[in-house]
């Protein structure tokens, strides 16, 4: 199937028409209109419709590249097919506009208001508006088809320009506040209008800013990437670690410069990143689809609240937050065992549904009047602000102490290894450096314990963010270390084929329980932080939606991939927001879960391994063998499935 026919064009066009009508009918287009991307003419609302004819116009003459056959060269045919597709989309939309003009559907479809037709024709009115819609449809479809004629590199450059303009236009909050805080008011006022939209000239400027360096630095970027790929695995790991450490350090310093709103979003992102990392251990490494992950989050939140707060009716130990953390860990580990044990011998899909049941049970228990004395029932528990007074210096000292111990151990280990082999190992130096840094942090922390005192009950979003970041770093470190250890390998074997793993001497019971407990503890950290972040916890904060959104993060990012989870949390939670927390794009509020659903489906259909899949870089290095063995992979999957 290398050439598409007009039949295909009509079919794709019809699909596109349905998509456009759907987006209009559920009210997405109109409610997204408030967000302007490029000032006079393009809003997010129109954008949510306009991508359809363009993308489908491109898709219709998509070529399947077969080995050994040359693809048909692109030509006018592609443009024509794209135009047909666009026409069909537009015709369907016109029919829809006529329909909603003639009949009042508002009784049933709440978003089909009289203004919708007006909006869809961009205010032109009926007869002229239809022509306008048709014209736009044809033009965009043809433009989509014409993309095939543009050679690869300019096309990807163009794509990048569009992407950057969109990103800057959509999350102007992020860029605006960074620029303003950095004292670059002038750039800010050049980029954005008073109503925070991008005027057309700054769009052009952004385009130039993307294209020029990319053209100039092309060779260098490739060289860096090539060097990274040819590094030995251990070297790559070290570079990855250094980058991650730099990101954390950056995050620790920078939030001073963000506004409270951005810090709030960042804290939410961090919280979900933390839980994503935890779920990644359970789902990504060990392959156990846990749909009730929110239960551990709830357990963490409730145990932290009960232990620290005086408002909890039954237990009032009123510990300081950090004194409570060890108990939270303990309780979470127990919860992990309790949930993990019954599901050990269950097969995959039953495991999913039983964990989901546990998730709901946890919420119902916290909500029940029966246990109101202990958990506060539906009114929840108010966290006592005075109890969360934390001197950040002690946190730093604690981290320093751990670093010191690790560094010394590493140094010692490398020394003894070197002595055995008789050659000197550079790693002993790395251990020494870590130890010295740790000692320094310990000293600074103890010397200035109040350099960042944090008293308020989590309203101080800046500190919350830092705090979350510390835990994210811990979670990432734990995952990273375990990934390439005996435990991590056992988990992966379990994921690949449970029965064979067992036959190779892996104790399935221990391996599964370790995964559950580790995941539970990380989620409980998240819960504890959540409790102090929002101040009062209600059972209704711990719905299944939460579990599913964490799962979406893990899946979109790439199961088993740390960078994937980080990216997933950053993009999804940052832009769309969590189940109850807003993201940068408030307009998405009502359609957030719709978009999460679509993302989940699209990822499973098109790219089940995620956006940044776990590193198998050999794929790039030995391309030819992969092509030749493609069928074997299919075979292997089949076998793994047949098990």
């Amino acid at each position, binding site marked *: 199937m290398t050439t598409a026919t007009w039949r295909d064009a009509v079919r794709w066009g019809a699909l596109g028409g349905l998509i456009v009508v759907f987006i209009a009918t559920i009210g997405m287009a109109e409610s997204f209109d408030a967000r302007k991307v490029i000032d006079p003419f393009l809003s997010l609302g129109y954008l949510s419709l306009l991508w359809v004819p363009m993308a489908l116009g491109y898709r219709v003459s998509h070529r399947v590249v077969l080995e050994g056959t040359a693809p048909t060269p692109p030509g006018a045919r592609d443009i024509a097919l794209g135009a047909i597709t666009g026409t069909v989309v537009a015709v369907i939309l016109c029919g829809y506009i006529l329909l909603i003009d003639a009949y009042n559907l508002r009784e049933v479809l709440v978003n089909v208001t009289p203004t919708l037709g007006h909006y869809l024709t961009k205010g032109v009115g009926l007869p002229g508006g239809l022509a306008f819609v048709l014209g736009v449809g044809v033009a965009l479809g043809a433009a989509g088809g014409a993309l095939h004629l543009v050679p690869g590199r300019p096309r990807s450059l163009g794509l990048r320009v569009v992407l950057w303009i969109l990103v800057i236009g959509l999350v102007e909050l992020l860029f605006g506040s960074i620029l303003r805080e950095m004292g670059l008011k002038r750039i800010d006022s050049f980029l954005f209008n008073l109503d925070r939209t991008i005027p057309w000239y700054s769009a052009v400027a952004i385009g130039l800013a993307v294209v020029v360096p990319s053209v100039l630095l092309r060779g260098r970027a490739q060289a860096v990437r090539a060097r990274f790929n040819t590094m030995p695995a251990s070297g790559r790991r070290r570079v990855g670690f250094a980058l991650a450490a730099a990101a954390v350090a950056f995050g620790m310093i920078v939030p001073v410069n963000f506004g409270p709103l951005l810090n709030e979003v960042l804290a939410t992102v961090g919280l979900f990143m933390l839980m994503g990392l935890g779920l990644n251990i359970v789902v990504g490494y060990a392959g156990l689809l846990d749909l009730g992950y929110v239960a551990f989050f709830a357990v963490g939140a409730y145990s932290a609240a009960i232990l620290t707060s005086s408002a909890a009716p039954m237990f009032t130990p009123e510990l300081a937050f950090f004194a409570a953390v060890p108990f939270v860990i303990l309780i979470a580990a127990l919860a992990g065992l309790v949930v993990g044990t019954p599901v050990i011998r269950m097969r995959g899909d039953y495991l999913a549904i039983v964990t989901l049941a546990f998730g709901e049970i946890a919420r119902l228990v916290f909500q029940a009047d029966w246990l109101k004395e202990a958990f506060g029932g539906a009114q929840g528990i108010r966290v006592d602000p005075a109890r969360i007074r934390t001197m950040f210096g002690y946190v730093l000292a604690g981290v320093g102490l751990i670093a010191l111990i690790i560094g010394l151990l590493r140094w010692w280990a490398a020394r003894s290894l070197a002595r055995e082999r008789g050659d000197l190992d550079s790693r002993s130096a790395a251990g020494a450096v870590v130890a010295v840094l740790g000692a320094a942090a310990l000293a600074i922390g103890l010397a200035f314990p109040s350099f960042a005192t944090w008293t308020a009950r989590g309203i101080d979003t800046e500190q919350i963010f830092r705090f979350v970041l510390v835990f994210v770093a811990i979670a990432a470190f734990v995952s990273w270390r375990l990934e390439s250890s*005996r435990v991590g390998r056992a988990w992966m074997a379990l994921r690949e084929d449970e029965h064979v793993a067992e036959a190779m001497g*892996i104790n399935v019971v221990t391996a599964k329980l*370790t995964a559950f407990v*580790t995941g539970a503890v990380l989620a409980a950290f998240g819960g504890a932080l959540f409790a102090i972040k929002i101040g009062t916890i209600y059972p209704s904060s711990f719905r299944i939606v939460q579990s599913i959104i964490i799962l979406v993060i893990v899946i979109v990012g790439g199961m088993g991939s740390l960078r994937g989870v980080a990216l997933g949390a950053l993009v999804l939670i940052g832009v769309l927001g969590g189940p109850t927390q807003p993201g940068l794009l408030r307009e998405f509020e009502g359609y957030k879960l719709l978009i999460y659903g679509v993302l989940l489906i699209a990822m499973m259909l098109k790219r089940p391994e995620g956006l940044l899949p776990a590193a198998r870089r*050999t794929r790039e290095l030995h391309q030819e063998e992969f092509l030749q063995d493609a069928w*074997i*992979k299919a075979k292997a999957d089949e076998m793994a499935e047949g098990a």
Partner: protein
Amino acid sequence: MSSPLLEIRDLSKVFGGISALGGVDFEITPGEIVSVIGPNGAGKTTFFNTISGLYPPDSGVILFEGSDVAGLNPDQITRRGIARTFQNVRLFPNMTVLENVMVAQHCRTTKGMWPALFQTPGFRREEAEIRQRAEEILGFFGTRLTGYRFDQPAFVLSYANRRRLEIARAMATQPKLLLLDEPTAGMNPRETIELTGLIGKLRSEMGFTVVVIEHDMKVVRDVSDRVVVLDHGVKIAEGTYEEVSSQDQVIEAYLGRPAKAGG
């Protein structure tokens, strides 16, 4: 002769009313290579699955080094020293070649979560040992699974290499007894000959005791000290290849009753 390494008495397994194994007796002494043959559906793979603990036996005794292992979990049986390969090659496809062999040393190593988190000296030493041993074992198969292959995911390997990797993985559990389920299935003649030699080497160089399920009679003749014939879950013959191959009952089991075969 020394005492048997594995001694099986009256092993039975029933699936939904059909007797897959009906009272099999079996015995192997250290250093032996025994082939198990029989027509399709004779219960050979069930025999392996029962020994390696994937199916709990319905009745019977499996004495390994004198202690009963019947009904233990597969991982415990592997820990005691019985390792196996699978008829339909079941590697961990998304793990690298090296990881496949490293993970199989799980039951011979001890360092858990905390040592891994803090990278204690013991952990680092053990990790180095695991890696080194894995490389040595893969080196046993020549250069096919070494070098750049180490870091390739298992699913890219050719069919023959997968079979080899599976044997390597079984070797990595440091067993005393190795159960190979049709190691030459799907291999071309040259590869088959090579693997036949390899099975011999498993005993002479690595000191394993080996039980092989095999369909290729040439391989059976070349490698085995002794042959056991199963049919419908019952042992119908046992002896050297020559003894067994001339028995009427065996020929009958393979070709059907003479009346039918002649017709």
